[in-house]
């Protein structure tokens, strides 16, 4: 199924175009991605406006995680275009042809795209503070003393002001994930990607992570969140995008998705979650 990259209200439901019609900060256009013979993304289009919080939902294997990983080019797309902040990601265009970018060029793009992983992926040999500092210091080559102050402030903001000198192995899952959020924020990204940030957590630590994300959304951060937390989706998101078998099958406001007029498809999905 090929989806049009339309901006009109009528096509919005199906393409995930943003309602305000603003210049999108993330533009995903007709993206295809296969792993070997298996086609994971079959022409996905999605525009995300500055400050918008988009939640991606769908059954496992529907392509949500792959889509998010394509946006910061942890996966290289086979077809289509992805733009972040107006810049083409993963390829450069030469005489109408797309040529894969060098690792160095990709790395430069990624500085502006924060990502939080399901399994935190903190650097185990570094303390919480060092985890947050390593990006600005080693990638942006900013002075340590200045970065340290910012990092300490960021860790305080995610409620870990007391744990700055702890190693990841000395922190709970929820604490580790909050450090991971601070690590991504330290690069001052223009968009944050969350790949099932609470799926690997003990139930009692899920809320502390969601609270941090809620505050981030309130602060105007552009966020694309893959999650099964329907409460978060309903309360925080501006738009819910549902994927199925590598395509976007529905997109709309949380009111539309959870409200009485919801589609059969979202009904089936929501009841399967319970």
């Amino acid at each position, binding site marked *: 199924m090929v989806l049009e990259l339309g901006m009109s209200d009528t096509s919005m439901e199906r393409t995930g175009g943003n309602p305000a019609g603003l210049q999108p900060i993330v533009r995903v256009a007709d993206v295809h991605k296969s792993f070997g013979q298996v086609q994971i993304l079959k022409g996905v289009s999605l525009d995300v406006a500055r400050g918008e919080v988009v939640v991606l939902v769908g059954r496992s294997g529907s392509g949500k995680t792959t889509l998010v990983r394509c946006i910061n080019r942890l996966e290289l797309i086979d077809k289509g275009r992805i733009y972040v902040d107006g810049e083409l990601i993963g390829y450069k265009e030469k005489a109408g042809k797309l040529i894969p970018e060098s690792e160095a060029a990709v*790395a430069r793009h990624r500085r502006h795209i924060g990502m939080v992983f399901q399994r935190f992926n903190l*650097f185990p040999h570094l303390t919480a503070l060092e985890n947050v500092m390593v990006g600005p210091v080693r990638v*942006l080559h900013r002075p340590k003393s200045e970065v340290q102050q910012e990092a300490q402030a960021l860790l305080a903001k995610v409620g870990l002001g007391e744990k700055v000198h702890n190693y990841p192995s000395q922190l709970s899952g929820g604490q580790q994930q909050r450090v991971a959020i601070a690590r991504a924020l330290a690069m001052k990204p223009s968009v944050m990607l969350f790949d099932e940030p609470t799926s690997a957590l003990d139930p009692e630590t899920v809320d502390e992570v969601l609270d941090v994300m809620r505050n981030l959304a309130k602060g105007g951060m552009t966020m694309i969140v893959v999650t099964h937390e329907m409460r978060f989706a309903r309360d925080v998101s501006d738009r819910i995008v549902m994927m199925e078998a590598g395509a976007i099958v529905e997109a709309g406001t949380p009111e539309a998705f959870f409200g009485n007029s919801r589609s059969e498809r979202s009904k089936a999905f929501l009841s399967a979650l319970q």
Partner: protein
Amino acid sequence: MIHIGGISFDLDFFLKYLFNPPEMIWHGILMTIAIAIIAQVAGVVLGFGVAIARLSKFAMLRGLAGLYSWAWRGTPVLVQLLIVYTGVAAAGVYRYPEIALGPLLISGPLQAALITLSLNEAAYMGEIFRGAIQTIDRGQIDAARAIGMRPSTAMRWVILPQAMRTVIPPLGNEFTLMIKGTSLLSVIGVRELFGSVQNINSATFKTFELFLIAAIWYLAMTTVLSIVQRFVEARLRRHELPAAATVKPNRSLLSAR
């Protein structure tokens, strides 16, 4: 002199040469340590290169590095040493003229020894680095890339520090083998510890006493090394300790009992 049946052992000579070694033995010990350190450092640096080549996305590079590792690990050091020194010189490829390095004069045999041990060690260190790098979780690389690190930056600040934890124990073993392996160099006339001891032997014929002394010195060097290794490993494991345990060991050491 002790005589038991037909056995003779010159205890005075033994004790004197053990606790008050002549200059030649001191010199030999220093040579052994210097050669082992230089060859090991070179082996680590070159070995890292071999590992990177073996993990490269270019099949050609992977193949060459595999071939290198296979050949150097599959042949005896003694044979390698004699090929690199005697063989290469006999073929006229390089005749190992002495090299003056400031006040130091590096003899032909010493050059051949350093080259052989370094290249041999690189093959082993290559395997060790490769294994260590491969055990790093894929998510670590994702996370490093996600904050904008280039592959080289990620290697330096994320992968290598973690890989070193896996590398240090076998590296210690390699260095132990290296110290012991330098004794082979006596066959091409390098005056390291065993070569020096053999020299003294040809003048005194106190063979058993002298070879025992050499063994004791090797044992002393490898023992000191193993103690150093334990400290380094403990330091690298700092971050694995849970918060409470970082305090405990000190307490038990200090408690008077």
